[in-house]
């Protein structure tokens, strides 16, 4: 994220704190897709993700006057989004969760399409990224897609910075294992 955008987000939050709805629309337009995708990757349900981003931005509207600017606005919003997503996941019936988890972590080698994917390393990588646990999926997304620094990930997830690095290492290790199972040997770790 550029410095200008960060500054601009801070200005928007200042206006939102004064009740400026246009500033709220601008902030929503700027960030809602990324926040939606972050939440969707956690809850795996588009309708729930849509409901949750409305709640996330409503929290932003209500709490804008308490934003202290210690972190980027996007980092603050992702932290809110993560909390909302995990709360929604906790409310789901266990059966529903089990079925989803099972679907997500199904061994790609059992899938008839895997043989085709072996020829397509990129597609295999994407399939395996989907099969990661929510914890590993989350950190991979935050680092690679949401462009969050070690410090920012630590703030969003609520873990020490060293744990961020460790968790990222194990997420990548798991990804490599899934790829290996799918027939893609990368020579690491």
């Amino acid at each position: 994220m550029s410095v200008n955008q960060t500054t601009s987000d801070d200005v928007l939050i200042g206006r939102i704190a004064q009740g400026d709805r246009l500033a709220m629309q601008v902030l929503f337009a700027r960030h809602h897709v990324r926040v939606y995708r972050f939440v969707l990757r956690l809850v795996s349900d588009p309708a729930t993700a849509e409901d949750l981003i409305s709640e996330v931005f409503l929290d932003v509207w209500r709490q804008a006057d308490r934003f202290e600017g210690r972190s980027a606005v996007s980092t603050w919003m992702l932290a809110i989004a993560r909390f909302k997503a995990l709360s929604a996941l906790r409310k789901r019936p266990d059966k529903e969760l089990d079925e989803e988890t099972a679907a997500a972590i199904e061994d790609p080698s059992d899938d008839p399409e895997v043989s085709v994917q072996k020829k397509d390393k990129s597609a295999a990588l994407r399939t395996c990224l989907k099969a990661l646990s929510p914890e590993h999926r989350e950190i991979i997304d935050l680092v690679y897609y949401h462009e969050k620094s070690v410090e920012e990930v630590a703030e969003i997830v609520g873990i020490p910075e060293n744990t961020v690095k460790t968790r990222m290492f194990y997420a990548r290790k798991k990804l490599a294992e899934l790829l290996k199972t799918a027939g893609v040997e990368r020579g690491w770790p």
Partner: protein
Amino acid sequence: MSTMNGKAPERQDIEDLLPWHAAGTLGRRDAERVETAIAADKELARRFDLVREELAETIHLNESLGAPSARAMQTLFAAIEQDGATSPRRRVSINFSSRVSAFFSSLSPRTLAWSATAAVLAIVLQAVVISSVVLKGSSASRSYETASAELPSQAGQGSDVLVRFAPQASAADITKFLQTHKATLVAGPTGDLYRVRVSTTRLPKNELDTIVKALQSERGVIALVLPTN
């Protein structure tokens, strides 16, 4: 992590940073460290390429997730409309009150006690000033009046004097004056005179005169003292 795969700590440290280096989110110093290490280590460079593959496919995967429908925005702004009563603008004033409360909470008990005393005296002074102004206004149309005639008669209940306080006397000065002389305000002001009780018993004239003289010596607080008995 530092002993992972038996690698040297420095090398492992650098490898841990590869994902952030690929995403361009490292600080300048760390980025230069990683660049230098990659340039000198072919295996590290190969692993950096693996990281870049992961980065590219993670972006591809996320971009394929689509975007939320307009429903999300409609829901949000409908909620904001309903939330009008608790809009941020209103909460700012609540927070101001909270900050004021927090300020007073932060004061020590002694400071708080002095503040409370000062506040009470300020209120008394205000009441005195307001009463004076109101009564002056109401008496403006009168041609003549005696202070003793206007003030409620307290005859037989103690010894009173009529007092005009000095303009420069503060509420604290007046309070101290009353305490020193064990006196109490019993009525007034009428015009700018107050009835002050200096004794709860009816004193002989000579004793009252002595008290009046003593009160008159308080030049900073008293402008005029008149016996009423």
